[in-house]
């Protein structure tokens, strides 16, 4: 697998990583890449339980109306 390219530019580095990760998926089993992806996603799902905002506050931040 090709090495991950790096750049001084953060935006460019992020795009390099997206391409690298897509290649990783192609070259590894769903189980392998899925387990790695799930570490990130499951931790966000866990932390979401402690997100402190009410529906009203959350929708206010989004610029949306809340009738609750």
């Amino acid at each position, binding site marked *: 697998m090709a090495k991950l390219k790096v750049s001084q530019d953060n*935006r460019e580095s992020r*795009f390099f990583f997206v391409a690298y990760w897509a290649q990783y998926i192609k070259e590894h089993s769903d*189980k392998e*890449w899925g387990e790695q992806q799930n570490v990130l996603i499951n931790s966000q799902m866990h932390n*979401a339980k402690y997100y402190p905002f009410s529906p009203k506050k959350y*929708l206010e931040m989004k610029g949306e109306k809340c009738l*609750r």
Partner: protein
Amino acid sequence: MDMEWVNERKIRLDKPVNELDRFVLRFIRIIENYVDYVIISGYVAILLGRSRATEDVDLFVKPIEKKEFIKLYHQLKEAGFWCLNADDDDEVYSYLKDNIAIRFAIKGQTIPNLELKFPKNRLDWDAFAELIEVETKEGVIKICSLEKQIAFKMFYLGSDKDLEDAKHLEELFKDRLNKEKIKKYKDLIRVEYG
């Protein structure tokens, strides 16, 4: 990669299902008893491997009569969801009828949430015509076509996050994507949104 195209409209995924996928599956198992849906936006790229999380999952549902919607809404509440925008049946439905999205989350939480809306224009309706079924280990999730997803991310939404989602799908499916279709959507987006 085990990800397999069963046919033009179906992908089979062998990845271990994560908690976000379960959240989506739990919601759509209920709504699909009442109405057709299609998932759009960032979750499509995430379901197909993109290494990021999200706070919301967007989906279109076909317009539904009020009586039927209220049955659906009550079933969602019984299953542990709440609507962030309102609680009252009439108020929740009035959002949708006025073409305003409503958000559902697990009761007591605000994120992640599912943002549900009726299709407004031809492009929105197209999402149903060209949807793809993604078969996971715990159920099927219907997503919009990859070409439409890429075109919207690149030529309409356009944030870095959207461009990265588009790049992920382009890199992953470069041998399968129909470039003409992406261009068609690009032109339609210009006509519809200027």
